[in-house]
């Protein structure tokens, strides 16, 4: 399931829903991305994500399908918030269910690296020093690069 939404994102409710009734998967890995009150020492009062509905979801769906096939996992969930997000609020929630935990960890890790560099969002941080449009950080590119060769 892939969804983008402006409504607040409840990681606990999403994980509960995702785990319910699974008797064929030994492991569920989730990642929750939270808005931080500061990045690189600069305070952030609000993070604004711009999405392109109708374009952003299929792009995420493609990344999810790649992860599912590559790591042979049973099920995935990816919910991404956009709009104005305050520190401490969840930006993204990803969950992966697999028969064994190794595949679930790898798929979730892969998916987050891909989302962080390739998902069609545009981010603006607002703090006391004004607004700043941001692009993926160098470590994000390095993380994503890890998957370019088969492991």
């Amino acid at each position, binding site marked *: 399931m892939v969804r983008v939404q402006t409504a607040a994102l409840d990681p606990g409710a999403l994980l509960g829903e995702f785990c319910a009734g699974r008797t064929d998967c030994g492991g569920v890995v989730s990642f929750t991305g939270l808005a931080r009150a500061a990045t690189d020492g600069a305070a952030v009062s609000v993070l604004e994500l*711009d999405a392109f509905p109708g374009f952003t979801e299929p792009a995420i769906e493609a990344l999810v399908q790649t992860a599912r096939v590559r790591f042979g996992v049973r099920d995935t969930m990816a919910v991404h918030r956009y709009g104005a997000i305050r520190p401490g609020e969840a930006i*993204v929630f990803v969950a992966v269910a697999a028969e064994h935990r190794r595949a679930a960890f790898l798929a979730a890790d892969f998916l987050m690296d891909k989302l962080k560099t390739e998902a069609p969002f545009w981010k603006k941080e607002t703090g006391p020093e004004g607004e700043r449009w941001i*692009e993926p950080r160098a470590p994000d590119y390095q993380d994503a690069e890890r998957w370019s060769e088969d492991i």
Partner: protein
Amino acid sequence: MLGRLRDIAGWREQVIEPAPDTLHGLRARLAQQDGVLGQALQGPGVQAAVNKVVVRGDAPLLAGDEVAFMPPMSGG
């Protein structure tokens, strides 16, 4: 207009009539209205999508087509 292009343009969506015949024509029209925006649309990494499909180079446009200009993505 997405991301920083929206801030530069000062608007997100606009109906442009009559519709230009091509994407190049649309870019020219926008540059005529707003030189700063016109320059930003030529900036590095700016992509265009017609009806939610990324288009490289020029493309024909029909009335009712939706065109999106996207600066380099920030990622999720």
